[in-house]
């Protein structure tokens, strides 16, 4: 299968009063054609910054991509001019955010906002754009599309707005859709609708998807390939079944075990002790070592690199290096 996007050694830093934060710290991964890649991690893991870096939405001088390459469709995104990047952003890569309300203009009707990229990027005239906009609204599962096209953002619920955002994102048939926590602000029944719909659209348009989430349930629902991030690093990645069946990294294991599951009640939930390390104060060590049950002496002094396991699974953990064995 062809790769749609290849990310090599991407590092994005933020500069604060207290020092530089390595929000994304030398990560590499690829997204195949038609594949849904999920980046999962907790707050501060760098998952959202990864998405913003790919989109070229890191605001300088507060943050900066200090290193790395992003190959997309034969182009190196980080070398492109602002103008070229903007064309790609609307056309070939689209993005949806957690808060749909803040990405829509409150004083312009929904339909007009969907028509905008159709007119600028695809050169449709007003009538065609309008017809297409209504088609799109219908496609994302909204009934009475004509009426919705006339309404303003504040008249719609969060779930509806997220659908509208998706309609806008897929309007130019992008090759890659990046979704940053698209269902986090929504209720579970609405979340189920949106995930179903995203999956359906993705299949139909043979689009690739990069989905950022903190919810392993969402990952299980929609992902083909999973990347687990912690403190700006990828700690484990693999195909979804491999990874859920046989998580290798103690952090992945902990995450999976600490999520309460309906019908599988325990007297005490497994919980990972401690908390995420201070991003300003990362030492040369495995960043997870002080919360890890299997911490070895080497974990405290050296950062492990990603290492291939069976299939596509890779893990960055000293337990799987030569000479050390996992129980």
């Amino acid at each position: 299968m062809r790769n749609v996007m290849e990310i090599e050694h991407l590092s994005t830093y933020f500069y604060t009063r207290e020092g530089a934060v390595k929000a994304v710290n030398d990560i590499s991964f690829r997204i195949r054609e038609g594949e849904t890649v999920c980046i999962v991690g907790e707050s501060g893991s760098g998952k959202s910054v990864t998405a913003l870096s790919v989109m070229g939405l890191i605001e300088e001088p507060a943050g900066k991509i200090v290193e790395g390459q992003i190959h997309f469709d034969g182009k190196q995104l980080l070398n492109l001019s602002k103008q070229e990047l903007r064309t790609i952003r609307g056309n070939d890569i689209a993005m949806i955010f957690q808060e749909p309300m803040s990405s829509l203009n409150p004083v312009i009707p929904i339909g007009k906002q969907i028509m905008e990229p159709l007119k600028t990027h695809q050169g449709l005239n007003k009538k065609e754009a309008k017809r297409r906009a209504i088609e799109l609204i219908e496609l994302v599962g909204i009934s009475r599309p004509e009426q919705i096209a006339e309404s303003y953002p504040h008249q719609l619920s969060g779930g509806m707005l997220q659908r509208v955002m998706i309609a806008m994102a897929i309007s130019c048939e992008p090759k890659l859709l990046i979704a940053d926590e698209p269902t986090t602000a929504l209720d579970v029944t609405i979340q189920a609708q949106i995930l179903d719909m995203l999956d359906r659209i993705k299949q139909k348009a043979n689009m690739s998807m990069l989905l950022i989430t903190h919810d392993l349930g969402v990952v299980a629902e929609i992902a083909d390939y999973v990347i687990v991030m912690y403190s700006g690093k990828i700690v484990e990645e693999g195909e979804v079944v491999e990874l859920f069946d046989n998580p290798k990294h103690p952090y992945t294991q902990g995450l999976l075990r600490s999520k309460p599951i309906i019908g599988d009640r325990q007297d005490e939930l497994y919980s990972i002790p401690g908390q995420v390390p201070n991003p300003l104060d990362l030492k040369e060590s495995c960043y997870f070592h002080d919360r890890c049950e299997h911490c070895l002496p080497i974990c405290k002094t050296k950062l492990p690199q990603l290492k291939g396991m069976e299939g596509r699974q890779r893990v960055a953990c000293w337990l799987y290096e030569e000479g050390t064995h996992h129980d």
Partner: protein
Amino acid sequence: MTEALLEVNHLKTYFPITSGLFNRTVGHVKAVDDISITLKEGEAFGLVGESGSGKSTVGKTIVRLADKTSGEVKFKGIDLHQLSEKELRKLRPKLQLIFQDPYSSLNPRVRVGDAIGEALINHGLATKAEARELVLEVMDACGLSTYHYDRFPHEFSGGQRQRIGIARALVLNPDLIIADEPVSALDVSIQAQIINLFRKLQVSRGLTYLFISHDLSVVEHLCTRIGVMYLGTMMETASRDELFRNPLHPYTKALLSAVPVPIPKKKRKDQKERIVLSGDIPNPANPPSGCKFHTRCPFATDICREQLPVFRHAGGDHYIACHLA
């Protein structure tokens, strides 16, 4: 049977919608529309619902942060909404609320130790020295270190702040703790820590909880009885095991099947058909007639559109408001 610690009877909380120059009331948001809950001592009751279900307003009305429209809230047999401000203030330590947002519910300018201990001193329950010892003890029980005493809230992470919020309620030795989405703002690994803390405290101190959450899996791990709310109305209540094994209301069923499970879809064998509800949650200012759920219910019939179902007994401790089940 132990005596009821909290009795909520036919509680209604309506918020007026005003409009125009003279703030005329043009309608009401029926945030809570005829809710009854009884909590026995030592019980953990989970109140589940989506946004707009009014579950948080139930909690706020019980502790009188919001005014009721009708109905009664009895705590140990005393109707809280009949008390004077002064009488209520005296009773408050026994009835504590833990907030969802651990960032905004702590005053940024008050040291953690003072924030936890101030109510003790203010109510005359302890001298300054005694309060300090009690605070340190409760901080320890909540997994906070003693050196945190003099720190300010901004120096803490979300999970630790929620621990502070819990400690602040706990130090007063309350009989009832109402927790309003206490873990929904936290990361998964931290969530588990806080859920365990709630559990541990319940066992060690015999606390009674009213646990408000949108997350069924969290409620399942903490509560012995569960109520499901939709648009201000109770749809179904049952003991935990009964509710999860045998949900009767179509809304409960849909809610249960909508919760994503961390088992990859690709390998799920049973492929039990998920009930994906169509449509949106209606506006609580203008709820549907009849059964409030009928607009989204896959089984709705004419009677559902016309008649409000009564909340009736459905065997055991199972209660339900549905014409069909």
